[in-house]
């Protein structure tokens, strides 16, 4: 079992991530028993069977959209967003949409190329869990969640921008 960061804690995690290998198709791939995170395409192709399982979550890739889970989000125990490269920022908007459009309240996990220096923004965009890349120190990564204290702008985590949250001066004198 590997560790992940979830709700600011380092916890053991028993979800397996299914990634399609060369030659496998979403229709034919065998989804193993036990807790498994399947690609969105597999979820869609094998919907009838998978929707009956309580131990299946779905991961969305960066070129896919949150809307595809519109009907199912409320039922899912886990939604993940894949970062094929840490510099690919589409996952932030996907997370925003999962939270604000789909109104998803469950665990939203960043998987893939997930690094310390991106965690602060990821958490603001709506992620509450992070499968930090395995060659990196997860204890170190945890520090990334608290880089800043009072952000200026609204996002998924804080709906009101700074100017509505606090009294600001600055114009005095």
């Amino acid at each position: 079992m590997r560790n992940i960061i979830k709700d600011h804690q380092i916890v053991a995690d028993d979800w397996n991530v299914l990634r399609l290998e060369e030659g496998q198709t979403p229709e034919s791939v065998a989804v193993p028993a036990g807790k498994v995170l399947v690609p969105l395409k597999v979820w869609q192709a094998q919907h009838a069977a998978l929707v009956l399982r309580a131990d299946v979550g779905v991961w969305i890739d960066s070129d896919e959209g949150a809307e595809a889970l519109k009907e199912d989000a409320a039922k899912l125990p886990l939604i993940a967003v894949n970062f094929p490269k840490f510099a690919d920022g589409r996952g932030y908007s996907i997370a925003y949409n999962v939270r604000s459009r789909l109104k998803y309240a469950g665990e939203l996990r960043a998987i893939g190329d997930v690094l310390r220096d991106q965690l602060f923004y990821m958490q603001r965009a709506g992620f509450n869990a992070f499968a930090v890349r395995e060659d990196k120190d997860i204890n170190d990564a945890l520090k990334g969640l608290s880089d800043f204290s009072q952000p200026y702008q609204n996002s998924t985590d804080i709906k009101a921008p700074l100017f509505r949250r606090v009294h600001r001066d600055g114009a005095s004198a």
Partner: protein
Amino acid sequence: MYRYDQYDHQIIQERVAQFRDQVRRRISDELTEDEFRILRLQNGLYMQRHAYMHRIAVPYGMLSSKQMHMLAHIARKYDRGYGHFTTRQNIQYNWIKLEEAPAILADLATVEMHAIQTSGNCVRNISSDQFAGVAADEIIDPRPYCEILRQWSTFHPEFAYLPRKFKIAINGAVEDRAAIGMHDIGLTVVKNDQGEIGFRVMVGGGLGRTPLIGATIREFLPWQHALTYIEAILRVYNQHGRRDNIYKARIKILLKALGAEEFARQVEAEWVDLKDSEATLTVEELQRVAACFTAPAYLTLPASDAAYEQEKATNKAFANWVMRNVKAHKVPGYAAVVLSLKKTGVPPGDITADQMDFVADLADRYSFGELRSAHEQNLILADVRQADLVSLWKEAKAHGLATPNIGLLTDMICCPGGDFCSLANAKSIPIAGAIAERFDNLDFLHDIGEIELNISGCINACGHHHIGNIGILGVDKDGSEWYQVSLGGAQGNDIAVGKIIGPSFSAGQMPEVIDRILQVYVRERTEDEKFIDTVRRLGIAPFKEYVYATPIKTELQHGEDAYA
């Protein structure tokens, strides 16, 4: 000027700490160069030909004298005693050590400065009109909106890893001095028929490999909705902008692929949920920020100062400087002064630490302690009494900052090119130097009149060559440096991309090429016709014909060898 409060201070401090730790992790190899590059770029740090380059943010070009002194200190302590003002109103240092970058940020933070998002694929420094707040043709001061957007875009969690860099400019005057048409988003502050304030929203402008002028996607956006609407634009772009090809990743390519109408439709659809959300601006917040930009304590003065008028009438050198470098002010008895960073022999935009200290002093004595930087790479004292112009002129002159060439041929925009930039195909500063030397005759320059000459060392177009009346682009041909010339580009309300006149030239030929172009202009112009208007009237054909009619001998002293 905007006065930062405890929240702004805290955010900058936290940034310094974050970056210091990132540099530490890079040096100890916890971060690979690949991982670190993106982090350092978002802190303005580039790896260049010889050393690191550090780009410091000057939000919408506003600087206090205290900040300018700090810039001088940075130049002395961490660089080689000078800095370079850029076409995005920022300042760059070219000789920085990675290990010292955190200390630079810490020093800057003491005067409320930073390098946040001066590079990288995020929302960059917001730029604006260098005469904001004082221009005689201003409709609404754009600076409060600039500052509100600066705050909104600072560490925006969703838009820090966009497909490509993202530039926003705001103009509040009749004349566009912020080149809004070549920005990813260009906003113009306007009043509608009911007298309400809002923005005309342009999207998809940009230079580089595919120069495009932005398209208007909304004629009037009430100001309250600025943040949510821009959020909608960025969300559409973030999800649908191309990431497979770095050259096609700017929003201009998405806009072009979808068409402005379809793009606007997607933005409006995205906006439905955001409109009227808590991110909608409030009157209180606008007033709070706007209060920082209230006019300084102007004196009540007559519209014109007698001694100043007298000096103008009798001192030709002073009159020349006034004609070129002094701009109309909306307050009677005041003027805005452009300090030229375009003295012959100095790379355009370069300024020494001593000059920085000097202009900071000038600002204290003559202009309420404030300065601005212009995208043409000059500095501005925005609030000078007419009565002070003569003494200001004398002092500036003594420090090499009163070249009376604003808007003239030698007021060139020029990127660092091959002397510093690792992306360059050719040098650009020596070309600017050779042209400036060749035309170092004020009477001639004044006779030629307004003309914009812009030089870039490669297709990235940092020197805005596309929108120069004359544009010069460094190109690589079989491993040597050549220059392509275009005509008819323009910034401002009639922004246009220039047309290439033909095969490229060697460095040594460039002064003569410019000379020939000017000869055609002088021959063909009607009375009072500006260069750009002659080009527009005649097209590029007569220029092209004359430039290529007879071979151009390379002037060796200006040739590429001379600059090797």
